[in-house]
Structures are given as C-alpha cells and as structure tokens.
C-alpha cells in the first residue's frame, strides 16, 4: 500500500467543481494501466480498462467539501458560501488553504450568546490590512479547504478529504494489483459528489454500465454516545446495505459477501441513515443499474481530521480486487 500516494491525494486541493488538480494526479498514476483515460464536461476522470463480460462502473469521488469566498469586507475579512455539508462547529478556529497556498483562519463575529453561532456568523481572516490588500490576495469565487496535514499515526490515518480520496486510493491500488478481470471495467473518479452526486449522474449516463460499485467513507459507530450502527473502525471492509441515496442491489451485496468469505477478507455491513454516495446516482441511470458500495468506516467525517484504520484500507483494497476478478453468478 502506497501511503505516500494517499497522503499526496489527501493534501491536494479539490473542492466540488474544482477537481482538476486531483484528476491530474490520478491520471498520472493510472494512465499506463488503462486503455483510455479522459475527462468529461463535468470534470469526471473516466478510465477504461478493457475486459471481458459485462460493463462495471467503479466510482470514487475526487471532490471534497470546502468554502467559497462570497464577499470581501472593507477591513479585508472574507465571508464565504459553504460547498457541501459543512458545520459551523467543524469550521470554527480551523486553518484553511487556498490553491495559491494562502492560509486563512476561520473565526466568528462577536456573539452575545454562544448559542447564536451559525455558519453565516463566521468569517475567514487572511491577515489582510484592509479590503484593497485582501483583494490583491483573493477574489470572490476563490475556494479553500482544511489545511491540516495528512499523517499516519499508530494504526490510523488522519487527514482532511479522506472523504473521498480514500475511495479514489482504493480504486487505484486495486487497479495496480489486478491480475485478471471478470468485467469490462470503467474506473470513474467523479466530480461534485458532495453537492448532490452530480458527476456520477453524467458519467453513468455516458458509460452505460451493467453494474455500479462505489467507494466512499461511512460512519464508524464507536465514538462516545454515537447512535448505534453496524459499522466500526477495525471492522474490515464495509459492505453497504443502504443509505439515503440507494438500497444496494442484492446481486452486488451477495457478490461482495461471497468474495470476502472465499478469500477470508475481514468484512462488515453498513447502513447510513443520512448521506448518500455515487451509487445513488448510478443505480437510477437510464434503465436502472444494479449497484453497491464498498465503504470504509471513518471517524470525524467532514472535519479537518477524518480518521480511518490502516487495516481497513487494506481489507477494502483486497475485497475490491477479488470483486473485480470474480464473475457475478
């Protein structure tokens, strides 16, 4: 497992709609391993690895949540629009980085009552002297992401944008390890998942797959007082049963289950009450596509410090390899 690549992927800056740098990184990594590798109108990177049998579309999303500058005030402080599921609790007092390397700190207006805190009370401070100075450094429309550095610590990986560079990483690693293939494979690194599965929607339309398989993070339900859910960190590759965007198809669930059992890969099941992922768009494309998801149980999703277990990453990669090498009965 190439952890340096994973770190590089997570450190790159790719808010929804601004995935070019991630696509370039991934393309470099996989272009020699695939037959055709191109970017579509919405910024999806679609890589075709020709093979026998039915068409399978794999999807991991390149984009991450972030902030977009919407206003620069007379004192040089920035207001922002949220891209994707941001929470003021997770943004407050965090460091953010723009593609130029510029750092901004999120802080809050003076409040009479701390309970009044809301996302529109927050602002970004880039340390500008005044409006003019700020406008030399940023423009309205510029985007930024959590500036935390990815690290491996103990048994875990901690980083922003784990959601969903980890999905992209699992796909890349599986592609590298693949010895044979039971499907005609499309590795699609999608755009704009965090704002409503938009890249996967158009990619599924162009690819016209027979099966869909997405890779994404899910909740690790083992933190203090969290609502009970089946998936946990260190529980192995998580086979999704449902989330708000789809009910996984029994064919795909059975396929993943049988591959995991045959190869003795540690696995678990996952159900997400909120949230969705790219298979949600793929399964209702055109005439309908049986779809499933391999998830990785993660803590602190959508914060600057998303966390997952190294052993779970390995289990997900192994399960993916087996799932692509084995025919669906």
């Amino acid at each position: 497992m190439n952890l340096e690549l994973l770190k590089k992927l997570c450190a790159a800056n790719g808010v929804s709609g601004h995935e070019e740098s991630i696509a370039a990184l991934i393309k470099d990594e996989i272009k020699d391993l695939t037959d055709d590798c191109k970017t579509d109108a919405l910024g999806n990177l679609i890589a075709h690895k020709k093979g026998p049998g039915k068409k399978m579309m794999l999807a991991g999303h390149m984009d991450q949540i972030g902030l977009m500058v919407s206003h620069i005030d007379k004192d040089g402080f920035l207001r922002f629009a949220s891209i994707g599921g941001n929470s003021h609790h997770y943004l407050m007092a965090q460091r953010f980085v723009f593609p130029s390397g510029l750092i901004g700190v999120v802080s809050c207006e003076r409040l009479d009552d701390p309970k009044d805190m809301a996302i529109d009370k927050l602002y970004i401070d880039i340390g500008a002297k005044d409006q003019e100075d700020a406008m030399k450094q940023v423009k309205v429309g510029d985007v930024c992401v959590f500036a935390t550095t990815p690290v491996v610590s103990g048994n875990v990986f901690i980083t922003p944008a784990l959601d969903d560079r980890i999905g992209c990483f699992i796909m890349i690693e599986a592609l590298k390890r693949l010895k044979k293939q039971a499907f005609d494979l499309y590795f699609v690194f999608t755009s704009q998942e965090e704002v409503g599965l938009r890249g996967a929607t158009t990619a599924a339309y162009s690819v016209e797959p027979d099966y869909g398989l997405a890779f994404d993070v899910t909740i690790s339900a083992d933190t203090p007082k969290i609502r009970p859910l089946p998936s946990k960190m260190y529980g192995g590759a998580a086979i999704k049963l449902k989330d708000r965007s789809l009910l996984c198809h029994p064919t795909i669930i059975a396929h993943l289950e049988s591959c995991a059992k045959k190869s003795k890969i540690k696995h678990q099941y996952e159900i997400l009450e909120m949230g969705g992922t790219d298979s949600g768009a793929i399964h209702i494309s055109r005439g309908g596509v049986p779809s499933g998801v391999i998830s990785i149980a993660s803590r602190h999703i959508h914060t600057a410090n998303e966390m997952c277990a190294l052993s779970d990453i390995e289990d997900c990669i192994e399960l993916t390899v087996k799932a692509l090498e084995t025919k669906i009965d």
Partner: protein
Amino acid sequence: MLLEKLTTACGLPGFEDEVREIIEAEIKDHVDSTKVDRMGNLIAYKKGKKKSPHIALSAHMDEVGLCIIGIERDGTLKFASWGVDARILPSMHVLVGKDKIPGVVGNKPIHLQREAERRSVYELEAMYIDIGCETKEEAEKLVSKGDFVAFVSEFTEFGENLIKAKALDDRVGCTAIIELLKEELPYSITAIFCVQEEAGLRGSAMLAKRLEADIVINIEGTICADMDGIDEDKQVTNLGAGPCLSLLDRSSVYQKKYLQAIVKVAEDEGIPFQYRRSGMGGTDSGSYHTGGAGIPCIGIAVPCRYIHSPVSVMHKSDMENLIKLVKAFILNGAERVAGK
C-alpha cells in the same frame, strides 16, 4: 415595451400558455424553427453560419403565485402557494384562472382584531380569496380547483431607470433571449423557454436529457437584498451594478473555466458585472449540467429587489448590460471556451 407585455401576462407553473404565445409571436420571424414539447417548453432554433459551438440560451416562462385547492360554502376560495412568502398576501389583488376572475385576499378588519391578532402574522391556512360570490355554486361557475392565481401589478417605471412589475423573475430572462434572437450571430442558437422552474426545475429536467448543445447560458432574475439594515455580505447583489454572474447555488457549482471566460469578455469590453454572492437558490442550470452526459453552464441574472412578490424592482441598465455581455460572450468568448 416587450418586458411590460410579458410581465403583465400570467404564467403560473403548468399554465404558461399566455406567456408562450407572446414569445412565439415575437420570435417567429427571427428563428428557423420552433416547437413546443409535451410539458409545454418552447424550444426555438436559429441556424448559424459556424458549426461549433452550438449555444443554448435558457430562461423560464413561469412565475410564482397561488393555486386554488378548495371552494368554501360561502363562495370564498382556499389556496396553496408556490414560492411565495405568505406574509405578503393579505390585501393582495389577484386574478384567478384562465378567465382571470378578479379577487382579493381577504382579512379581518383591523377594528375587529384582538390585540394578540394585530401582533401576529396571518397563517396561509387562515387566508382566503374573495371573488365576490355568495355561495359555493356561484363560485364554481367561475373558477375550479386547480386554477392558478396570479398577482396583479401594474408595470411602472419610476425613480431613475427603475421598473416595478410582477414576474420579473424570469420574464426579464425571456426578454433578454428574445432580444438576442433578433441579432444576427455567427453560431447556431437553441433558445429555450422553460415551464415549471418555480415548481422545482421540472421543465428543464426532462428537456436536459435530450438537449444537444456545447454550452448553456441560463438567464434569470435573481435575489437583490441591497437595503439598509442588511449586512453588506448578505446583500447577494446590488441594483444597477450590472448583470450578476453565478458562482454557486443549491443546484450548481458553476465551472470556473466558463465563468472566467465570460468575466474576461466583460473586462475586455468594459461591460459592468457583479458576482451573485450567495450559495442559496437554484436555477435550470442544475438540470442542464447534470442532464444526459452534462452540458457546462453559465448562470447570469438581472438583480431584482423584492423578488417573488408583485412589486419586484429592477434597474433597466442591468438588463441592457446583461444582453450586451451575453452577446459579447457569444461573439468573442464562446468559441474559444466551448468550441470543438
């Protein structure tokens, strides 16, 4: 004036016929073909000398308003709302249904209101429309359940270059496209006048799956909250400061490449513009960029104060500059950024 004619016409979601007929008559001599699809979208095609890029211009014909859901025994009408703030409704003058039966949204005289009532806001459920009938039977001869209810608002020019009207969202977009169709442009243009945007981008949703174009320019009327008492960073747009270019909203993240291309044209040609500084709201761009294999979109709009009310206000120069900028982009930016 075309905008006056269009804003005076009524076109609630699903009832856009009157607006569509005006547009059809206005454009027929300037386009090669027109068709109306099963949902009522009007699609016009104007062939250009150059093959690529094929440019689609889109605006929606429908407006916000009310819909009759019940006729009471006393001849008054109960209604549901499409995107309207219920607090603005009492005392409103309205027109009901295709026959445009005049009515008023009634409320209790101030003399009879208790202290607590005076301080509270009417709930939608407590309001009714009075069309002057005494019985249910009498009312049923004039209106039916499902009839649309449109605002009445005289098109008025006031202040310096300001216009007050209903339905500026999005008759201003329709007007801009009609004006652009009257120009001779080098590229093929598909002009789309959509139905049911206010009901959830529905007209464009089905159309987007079949649309063949290299880029869509979606033209709208948008939020403008540049009044005293609203923090500068929450004003979204400013009246008279030029057409508004969308960065993101709930339906789209606008692709930087295309946004930058139109910004460059505006800067090169000295056409004023502003950014739409909010992530809220949604437009038909949401349908186009995710329909089929996806078509990139530019979102551009005229700022409208008091939007979604009968007294929406716009600045004439914003519409003029919008038309100027879209035209300049088609001539000097579109081929570079969207050509094959």
